[in-house]
């Protein structure tokens, strides 16, 4: 288990993390959501021991991060957003290098190649790989030390849909291996697809942590969505939303709105509880469109 207790981190006057507490279950795939500057990358850097916290404590699988940074680094791995390998080396040379500096076991080395489908690319110069292949190499390097925890910092940026699905499928498979995955992405659909639990950060603070199921379930939503077909007349109603509108779960308001839409010949496609879609929920929670 990863237990983050009341941590804070400032860069000068800017508070990157503000009294943040989180608990991440062992073996889960945990999504970190937040707009740019919410504190996601700072949190990942802290969990990797790259940055020190100002206050608070972090316990990772029984190790205090302030005292056992090296031990924690041995059981964890970060997959950075940028391709963190050497383009002038071949795939094999990159893997050999990162394996040797971590004293990786042969079986982990081979497993990493296999999971990421790199067997046929070993002698290819890394700079000549496609975007998706480069991403897979970036991930394979992170698996060489057979980590118990993997931190993914937006690993699918710039990847075509097919490769993205392959990467997401491989990440899901880590769960079966008992690996704890902490995943940040701007793509809410990815989080929805692979994560068990999600935390939403805003201005360095935790504003919500729950299982994905709960977040998207009726229980947590206090909104009803009315999806409409023709939006031409919505302006007459002084509504900003073009294809659907949120209203509070208030019976009178619901009936009044339906009646208003009928009078103005606006066809209703669907009426449902709000936030069945994570992006909608996120925007609702943060009040921000810059996800």
């Amino acid at each position, binding site marked *: 288990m990863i237990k983050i207790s009341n941590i804070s981190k400032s*860069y000068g006057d800017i508070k990157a993390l503000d009294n943040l507490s989180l608990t991440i279950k062992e073996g889960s795939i945990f999504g970190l959501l937040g707009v740019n500057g919410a504190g996601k990358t*700072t949190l990942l*850097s802290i969990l*990797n*021991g*790259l*940055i*020190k916290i100002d206050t608070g404590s972090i316990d990772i699988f029984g190790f205090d991060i302030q005292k056992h940074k*090296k031990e924690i*680094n*041995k059981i*964890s*791995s*970060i997959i*950075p*957003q*940028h*391709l*963190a*390998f*050497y383009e*002038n*080396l071949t795939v094999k*040379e990159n893997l*050999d*290098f*990162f394996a*040797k*500096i*971590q*004293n990786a076991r042969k079986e982990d080395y081979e497993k990493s190649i296999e999971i990421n489908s790199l067997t046929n690319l070993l002698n290819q110069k890394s700079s000549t790989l496609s975007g998706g292949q480069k991403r897979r190499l970036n991930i394979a*390097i992170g698996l060489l*030390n057979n980590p118990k925890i993997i931190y993914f910092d937006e690993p699918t940026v710039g990847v075509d849909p097919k490769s993205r699905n392959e990467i997401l499928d491989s990440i899901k498979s880590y769960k079966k291996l008992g690996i704890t995955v902490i995943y940040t992405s701007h793509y809410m659909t990815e989080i929805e697809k692979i994560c068990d639990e999600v935390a939403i950060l805003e201005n360095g603070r935790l504003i919500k942590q729950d299982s994905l199921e709960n977040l998207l379930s009726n229980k947590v939503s206090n909104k009803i969505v009315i999806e409409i077909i023709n939006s031409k007349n919505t302006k007459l109603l002084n509504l900003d939303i073009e294809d659907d509108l949120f209203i509070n779960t208030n019976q009178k308001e619901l009936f009044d709105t339906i009646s208003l839409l009928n009078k103005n010949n606006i066809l209703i496609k669907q009426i449902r509880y709000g936030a069945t879609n994570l992006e909608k929920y996120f925007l609702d929670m943060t009040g921000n469109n810059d996800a």
Partner: protein
Amino acid sequence: MMLSAMIKKEFLLVIRDKHALLALFVMPAIFILIMSVAMRDQFSTNNLEFSIYLQDEDKTQMCENIIINVQNDKRFIILNKKKDAQFIVKIPKEYAKNSSNLIQINVQDSIKSDQIEVFKAIFSEHIIKARLTYISESLGNYLPNASTPLDSLEVSVDKLYKVKYNDSKILPNSTQQSVPAWIVFGMFFIIIPMSTIYVNEKKQNTLTRLTSMNVSIFAMTFSKSVPYFIINQIQVWIMICVGIFLVPYFNTPALEINGSILAIISVSIGLSFTAIGISTLIAVSAKSSEQATTIGGISNILLGAIGGVMVPKFIMPESMQQIAELSPMSWGLDGFLDIFLNGADIGIVIGNTLMLLVFGLITLIISMIILQLKINKGL
């Protein structure tokens, strides 16, 4: 195991950077060739050549002797056409009788004043010799028993004077100046490829990855230094070989190693430490590869200009020579010049070597501190 893997990786990266290799090995070699050949006449005191056209209007025995002497001197190329001659020498009528009739020299516009002075000095040798012969023969008629052994009359400028500098140093020829100067400069070329590798590691997050894999700052710095140290040592010997074997093909004096090989190795090691130290310092301080390349290039040129690489220190004014002492390139260059010109052994150049080693170590330590601070701040 970790360190050997790091060093191997750095070697692979360096070997595959063709442009950097070209800049590190070919450019200094070309510099040595160009500068040795271009500055050959500026540095030379023995291998002068002047093309001249002679016009004797006096037609006396003495003037004939002058012309014969000049024709026998290999420093003069006698031409039949005025047009191509650097110097047109006209001996006026009745010159032998009356020395107040001056010899007239017409000079091509491209000839510099110092070349004219050298020409005059050498030509004077032959006039003096011819005059002495004339006087001796004239006196011989009156004093038949007091004949002068003319063959032993030595009036060569080179044999009349022995020029030595106050500090007993000998003047270098163009190769002796160019080879050490461009060896030193070439060794500092590593600033650009080395800083690019550091900046790219920062930019591409490989540095973050290595840090998260418990790779120490020392291992990162050391592993990057090893290939460039070896490159520096290879550079030194390639440049020396260029000076010894290639430069003579261009009618330029070959490099002579008068000092000990051990002394060359010692100065090379010191210089390499300094070059690596400065490169690492620039690399870890720069925010982008553009910044590193610009700062690296400028500092290389400045250190070279101050340190006597571009302009030899012995022709600098004294105040500039004192400033030159501040440049580590000057410490290395002085060491090499001592070895090549004065036959210095390791005992003589150990001071320069130690200064370079200490400077290199200090800059490396500062670089490691800066890198650690940057990593602590999340780069």
